[in-house]
């Protein structure tokens, strides 16, 4: 504030501090009487769970509180008729804290919380609202966000505080606003509002681009109607329309009048806190309000917000200097404008809120230095609150107990946490026809994590619409059916993900007597098959429970143009009139033609039966050919065509039957799935995935077993000796000594044996070599070259072997005592014998 700065300039710094201290004391004294009624609620709690920063103020905080007090006093002095500002409420430990330091900008690690919609929705869902008591007074306390999140209960200031912290963390230019609002807003009463899910979406009407007038566009035929009559007609129509509109408007007004809330005695006095998000950061185009109880956004011009006393965020605090007689409609939120907003801390905010240009910044650098030399501003102390943290479980639970019900105008919205309900329901919106919510009109349900991939179900006008995501066995996308008749052969529409289907089916519409299938991207260019069913012939005793299939009267198949064929041979439509044994073919139109060739076949009865070949007669066909000069088709070709068509007809009937089968299968599957209503659990969800948990435990168990087995595997060198004395449970001293003796003797024997063995081999090898040498010397003259070579080879090998044996013997001799000593040591330490040594 201007005044305090002047003061500071006049007084020496020390004196200033002294002064502040005094002021500080003064504040505490004045605050005491107000604290009293709240103390009992606070003292109930144990403060020990709170960290130091909650229970005490640092020097800097004390300084800022002095500053705040100064600000408040000046404010009160200047605006005697205005309500006090919300500046330094008590925290949960009864310590005064400046509101700006209660904010803690935090970005949580959930994707949805990176956008203001997600943050607002989370805060609105997660906390339960508590209205201010009394509604026209500021609260005495403002708890830290961590405490509020733990209790999941708070008033509008708590809500705004947390929401603003999250928004600041996500990079928005957000502020807590303290002001006045209507009763509906303060009580979070949305029953007069249209549910946000029901609000008609603004359709972006794209004006059809007018084709540029071309030079050679043909002139339209002359319009021979009377211009006058047309004009009169248009005028009359317009008048009627206007009248209709007027009437509608009047009706709407009447309804609005009736629905108006009753007058509120405290109108304009109810205190409320909400969040202001200013444009400029995070691609926010213009300022708007977020109502923290509902998470809804409002434009500043909204009539629900009646006035503003002050705004603040973690950087600064501003008091409003503008007149709020007409609500917030005409208010300017340019906080730099000192005419309209009175800031508390000078200098601390400028650079942070304005986005400086790079050049300016460079230029500013020197300026800043100068400024810093000139005057030092008090900046905001660090926040005292604990970090805001929300665990994954808490985040997923959303609302307290995972449930929340909101009433809107003629609608009820219920929200549930994921995995809370057995059928995976997360949201249910019930729309009613009246305000008393008794006349149910429409129910819309959203599901998550369903094993059967169901996402939404809408029940309206007796029709049920179910939507699925991709991945179902038959690629069902949407299923619309009558609630009263869910069985097969009833009215229904099924939409499919045609890309996932082999037959390219994208839609199947059914009525009791008809079935229409639409196809996309088929190799045979088929895009529509329409079937007309007849009535079932009544039989006395049906063989199966379902009875015979409905008789097919007519199958119509339509094809796209196949460019590989000439148009006059490319079938556009083929109709099998089965009960008349007739086939009608219509070919595609040649490009310039307006008529299409047709050909009708009259098949003899039972033509499709195999065996006897079909007899041909000329009256079996009737042809209309577009081109009268073209050569008529040969009888042979027509005959072959007919044979082929008879086969096609059978195939089409087959296809229809399998479609019927499929419908039955899908319905059966749906029924089963509805009964089971299993929820899918992601493999990455280690918390819920029992299978993964089991698997992990299994792995742990296996590792354990492996370890045990390895322990067992280690050789027990005492085992054979113990066995000799009959594996006694306890070993006496004499036995122990004997065991030791035996064991050592055994080792000694083995070592000696081994040495003997090596010695023996060595000797044998040497004597052999000796013998061969003698032999060689005797026969040297008579020997062939090959023999000689063999001999030399043998000699060198034998020498090598002897050398190795020698080395081994030496080594053994060296190692033997060591080994003996080692065993002795080990025996001494053996748990079974160590008692006696």
């Amino acid at each position, binding site marked *: 504030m201007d005044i305090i700065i002047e003061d500071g300039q006049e007084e020496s710094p020390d004196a200033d501090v002294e002064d502040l201290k005094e002021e500080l004391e003064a504040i505490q004294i004045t605050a005491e009487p107000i604290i009293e009624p709240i103390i009992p609620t606070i003292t109930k709690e144990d403060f020990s769970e709170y960290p130091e920063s909650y229970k005490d103020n640092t020097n800097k905080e004390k300084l800022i509180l002095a500053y705040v007090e100064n600000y408040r006093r000046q404010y009160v002095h200047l605006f005697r008729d205005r309500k006090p500002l919300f500046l330094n409420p008590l925290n949960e430990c009864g310590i005064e804290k400046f509101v700006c330091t209660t904010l803690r900008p935090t970005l949580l690690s959930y994707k949805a919380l990176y956008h203001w919609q997600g943050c607002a929705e989370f805060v609105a869902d997660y906390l339960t609202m508590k209205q201010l008591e009394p509604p026209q007074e500021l609260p005495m306390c403002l708890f830290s966000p961590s405490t509020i999140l733990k209790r999941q209960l708070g008033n509008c200031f708590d809500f705004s505080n947390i929401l603003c912290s999250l928004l600041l963390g996500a990079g928005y230019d957000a502020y807590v606003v303290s002001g006045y609002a209507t009763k509906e807003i303060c009580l979070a009463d949305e029953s007069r509002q249209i549910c946000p899910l029901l609000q008609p979406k603004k359709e972006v009407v794209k004006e059809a681009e007018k084709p540029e007038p*071309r030079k050679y*566009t*043909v002139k339209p035929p002359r319009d021979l109607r009377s211009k006058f009559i047309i004009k009169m007609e248009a005028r009359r129509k317009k008048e009627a329309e206007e009248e209709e509109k007027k009437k509608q408007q009047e009706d709407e007004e009447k309804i609005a009048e009736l629905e108006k809330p009753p007058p509120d005695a405290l109108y304009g006095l109810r205190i409320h806190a909400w969040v202001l998000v200013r444009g400029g950061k995070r691609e926010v185009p213009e300022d708007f309000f977020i109502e923290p109880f509902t998470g809804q956004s409002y434009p500043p011009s909204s009539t629900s917000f009646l006035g503003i006393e002050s705004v603040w965020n973690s950087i600064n605090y501003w008091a409003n200097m503008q007149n709020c007689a007409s609500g917030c409609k005409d208010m300017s939120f340019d906080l730099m404008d000192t005419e309209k907003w009175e800031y508390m801390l000078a200098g601390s905010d400028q650079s942070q809120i304005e986005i400086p240009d790079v050049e300016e910044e460079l230029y500013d650098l020197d300026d800043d230095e100068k400024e810093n030399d000139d005057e030092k501003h008090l900046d905001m102390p660090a926040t005292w609150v604990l970090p805001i943290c929300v665990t994954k479980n808490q985040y997923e639970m959303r609302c307290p107990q995972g449930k929340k019900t909101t009433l809107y105008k003629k609608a009820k919205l219920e929200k549930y946490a994921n995995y809370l309900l057995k059928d995976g329901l997360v949201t249910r919106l019930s729309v009613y026809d009246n305000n008393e919510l008794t006349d149910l009109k429409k129910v819309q349900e959203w599901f998550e994590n369903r094993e059967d991939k169901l996402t939404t179900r809408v029940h309206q006008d007796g029709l049920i619409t179910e939507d699925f995501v991709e991945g179902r066995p038959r690629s069902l996308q949407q299923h619309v059916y009558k609630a009263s008749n869910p069985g097969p052969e009833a009215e229904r529409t099924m939409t499919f993900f045609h890309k996932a289907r082999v037959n390219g089916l994208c839609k199947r519409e059914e009525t009791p007597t008809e079935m229409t299938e639409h196809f996309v991207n088929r190799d045979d260019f088929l895009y529509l098959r329409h079937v007309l069913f007849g009535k079932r012939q009544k039989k006395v005793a049906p063989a199966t429970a379902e009875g015979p299939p409905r008789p097919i009267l007519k199958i119509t198949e339509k094809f796209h143009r196949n460019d590989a064929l000439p148009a006059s041979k490319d079938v556009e439509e083929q109709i099998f009139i089965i009960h008349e044994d007739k086939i009608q073919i219509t070919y595609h139109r040649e490009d310039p*033609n*307006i008529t299409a060739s047709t050909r009708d076949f009259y098949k003899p009865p039972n033509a499709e039966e195999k065996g006897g070949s079909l007899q041909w007669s000329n009256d079996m066909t009737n042809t209309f050919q577009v081109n*009268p000069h073209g050569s008529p088709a040969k009888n*042979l070709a027509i005959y072959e065509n007919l044979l082929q068509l008879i086969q096609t007809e059978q195939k089409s009937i087959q296809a229809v039957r399998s479609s019927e089968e499929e419908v039955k299968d899908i319905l059966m599957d749906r029924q089963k799935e509805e009964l089971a209503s299993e929820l899918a659990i992601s493999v990455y969800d280690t918390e819920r995935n029992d299978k993964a948990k089991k698997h992990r435990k299994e792995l742990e168990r296996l590792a354990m077993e492996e370890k045990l087995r390895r322990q067992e595997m280690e050789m027990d060198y005492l085992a054979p000796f113990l066995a000799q004395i009959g594996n006694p449970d306890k070993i006496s001293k004499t036995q122990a000594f004997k065991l030791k003796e035996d064991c050592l003797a055994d080792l000694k024997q083995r070592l000696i044996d081994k040495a003997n063995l090596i010695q023996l081999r060595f000797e044998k090898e040497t004597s052999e070599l000796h013998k061969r040498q003698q032999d060689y010397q005797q026969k040297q003259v008579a020997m062939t070259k090959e023999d000689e070579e063999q001999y030399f080879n043998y000699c060198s090998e034998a020498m090598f072997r002897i050398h190795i044996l020698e080395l081994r013997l030496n080594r053994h001799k060296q190692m033997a005592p060591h080994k003996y000593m080692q065993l002795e040591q080990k025996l001494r330490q053996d748990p079974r014998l160590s008692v006696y040594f």
Partner: protein
Amino acid sequence: MSRLYDTVEPSVIDDEMLRKAVEEQGPKEEAGKIAKQEGVDYCDVLSLRLDFRNILKVDNLWQFTKLTKLQMDNNIIEKIEGMDALVNLRWLDMSFNNIEMIEGLDKLTKLEDLTLFNNRITRLENMDSLPNLHVLSVGNNKIDQLDNLIYLRRFPNLRTLNLTGNPVCDDQGYKLFAVAYLSHLVYLDFRLIDEDTRQKAHSLYENKLGELMHNEKQAEVAIEAEKKAAQELLKHKDAYVEHLNSPVLFESMYKEDPEGMKLSMLPGLQDMLKDFQDKFVEVCMKIFEFGMKEYEKRCKEMREFNTCIQDAEAANKRQAVAVIDAFEEYKKKLFAELLVTSDAEIQERKMNEYHEGVNETWDKIMGLEMQLVDQLEETIKDFERNMTDLMSQLVEYIQGLITQVRDLENSHNEKLLEMCMTVLEKVVKNEMDEELPDDLRMLFVDKDTIVNAIGASHDVHLMKIDNREDEIVTRSGAWLSGHMQKIHADECARNRARVVEITNYIDHLRDEIDTQFMP
């Protein structure tokens, strides 16, 4: 061939043989009966087998235009001929014959499978027009040149090749050579080529192959460039300004001008000539640029015209189709009703109603057609007017430029004359410093000769320029009138076809009810 020539009686392909073969290989049972009744046209036959018939000469196959498969193995054919009409052939088997040379396949561009097993062929050749060849079987022949296999590189689709029993197979490197050079091959001599062989072959012939491929690529690029140039030239021709972006016209003036050539040897003339050429070519360039610009304009105009006409026709067609569809719907309903009613009076009334409906439909679609004719006529007139304007503009401007060219030539001629006069004077006075070539000196005997020579040269030049001008004028005029005539003729044909179609349809409608419900 193991069979001896003179022991068998050679036969020829005659009508009887063909008829029998077609009948034998044609449809069977009921279909066969129908076929016999109405006879089979040779042009409808898709496959034909003429094997073991001792045919000596291939002939009389010109009617089989739709044939896709022809088997003529085990005959004594000596020459591949008489198959130019079989343009749809995909499968040709001429194995076990006495063919000595591959030829006569130029028209069979769709051929995919060619079998010439056991013949006397010595070279792979004359198959350039068969880009679709998949399978080639030339085993048991007399191919002996390994390099000849490179010929097969031009078939990008060739997957199967059979060469067993040829002398070339005795070459040790034959297999690797074939695999290396014909990298698309999958089967060689009845066997799948395995990866091992492929790699071996590739490493063996890597260098040679690289060189070959490089050459092939270059040839390809050259062909491509040539094609592009030809296209460009075609475009220039359509704009009537071909070669005007180069000194071709200038050079052509001197080409047929012996005096001018001689005179150009005159000392000091070179610079003048150069100057003249520069100016000349500059003006030509202007003509060229203008011509191309106008050409683009014309093209745009034509495109616009065509799209508009197509739009109008399409819109008209939609309307007419809607009328017809509506009537067809009505007809179906009416027929269904007629079938169930037996009351003669109601039938009578309904049929009258139907006939009225037919008349009404006729009125409607004919009216639409007349409307379209009127609309198109007007639009075509507009288009013609605009095109004529464009053309006259073009011609006028180009004529103006050509006048400039002529002026250049005139001034050049005057300068030349002046220069020659001074030279003549010098020559007469014998003051000439430099030696003139003999044939040039011949011109400088007296004034008349030199003036005549220069005059002749000038005339030739002017004639060339005039010719070029005339060419542009006549060609552009001819194109315009031809194009407009074509548009008119097309429109006329379209109208006639539509009227015929409508009449045919209406007749059909009238017949239909009569045939269906009249006893």
